[in-house]
């Protein structure tokens, strides 16, 4: 059953990425050099909308909070994000859009994916020698959310009710999406 869902959900996500223009590296490059923000608007809107609906549907019991999967916060998240950011800006591809760009027939995406396989292999080989370094020091206790919706993960701001905070952030994201200029 989950394999069937993987096929349906994966096709839907890949379809959405291609249709919004995320498989086109020109759109990513233009977003990052701040000349065309249509993708940034779409991403803000998508995160805001899905976050708002997720927390509302969890609070009324439609979505099982057990499906949440929060990643750990540690120094390497920021360092790794920055390393990824350099390649992301130059290539105009991230791991997901690089793969889906293959379906556009983009030859540069093939080189990106091959490079990606090498990068992931290098990490697999060096992990053993860096795993006990400061790179893996937790930030704010590791697996934390700003607004908690489940018993599994701690809230960073426990004073504010989780649903209220998440919906507030979600709506703020949608407003940002609305007011960001498309072309700069």
């Amino acid at each position, binding site marked *: 059953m989950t394999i069937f869902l993987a*096929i349906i*959900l*994966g*096709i839907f*996500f890949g379809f*959405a990425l*291609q249709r919004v223009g995320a498989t*086109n*590296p*020109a759109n990513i*490059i233009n977003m*990052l*050099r701040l000349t065309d923000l*249509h993708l940034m608007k*779409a*991403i*803000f*809107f*998508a995160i805001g909308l*899905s976050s708002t609906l997720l927390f509302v*549907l969890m609070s009324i019991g*439609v979505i099982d909070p057990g*499906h*949440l999967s*929060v*990643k750990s916060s*540690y120094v*390497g*998240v*920021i*360092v790794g*994000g920055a*390393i*990824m950011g350099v*390649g*992301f*800006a*130059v290539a*105009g*591809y991230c*791991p997901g859009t690089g*793969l889906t760009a*293959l*379906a556009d*027939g983009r*030859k*540069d995406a093939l080189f990106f994916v*091959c*490079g*990606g396989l*090498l*990068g*992931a292999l290098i*990490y*697999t*080989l060096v*992990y053993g020698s860096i795993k006990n370094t400061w790179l893996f020091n937790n*930030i704010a206790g590791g697996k934390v*959310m700003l607004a908690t919706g489940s018993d599994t993960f701690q809230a960073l701001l426990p004073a504010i009710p989780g649903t209220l905070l998440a919906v507030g952030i979600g709506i703020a994201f949608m407003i940002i999406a609305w007011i960001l200029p*498309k072309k700069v």
Partner: protein
Amino acid sequence: MDGQLNWFKGGLLLGAAFLLAVAFVNPIGVSTQFVIADGIIWNLFSDTVIQKDTANKSGYASPNAYLNKSGGKYAKNVAKPLNYSFVFVIAMVIGAFLSARLGGPHPTTQDRIAPEPWRTRFGQNPVPRYVTVFLAGVLVLFGARLAGGCTSGHMMSGMMQTSLSGYLFALGTFAAAVPIAVLVYKRI
């Protein structure tokens, strides 16, 4: 470009994809599957990289520390790649293919070699683009694995769940990506 959705419709579609994934199974993630793909290839050439081990939580173990992490979780996925996350990523490529065939945006022959901002800045020769994009791919996947996730896992799924890690990742990524993009491609 023809067939490309505007930010509102595109955002609706993307948002629906994140929400449905977490509603039915799990949040979306992609970069881990590059490790699994490497593991599958490695496993073809090695008898020892993946072993059955009932002492490990997953039932599989590896002498490689990364594949052996979290009770051999990755080792198991290398041994049995027909799982949700790996199939999801393959299905993504099929989904993008269907979109392109069913009226989605179509790149020109030149776009298929290098995107327009690259050609404007560095010319039509494909070799520099291919070499650069290969090295960029190395950085992207190395960085994403160090961060424990990529754009889809941290930024989209993570921020949707209001995970602190998603915000930290976005901070690191954009702090590096925006200046580099401006430097490499200029603003015009």
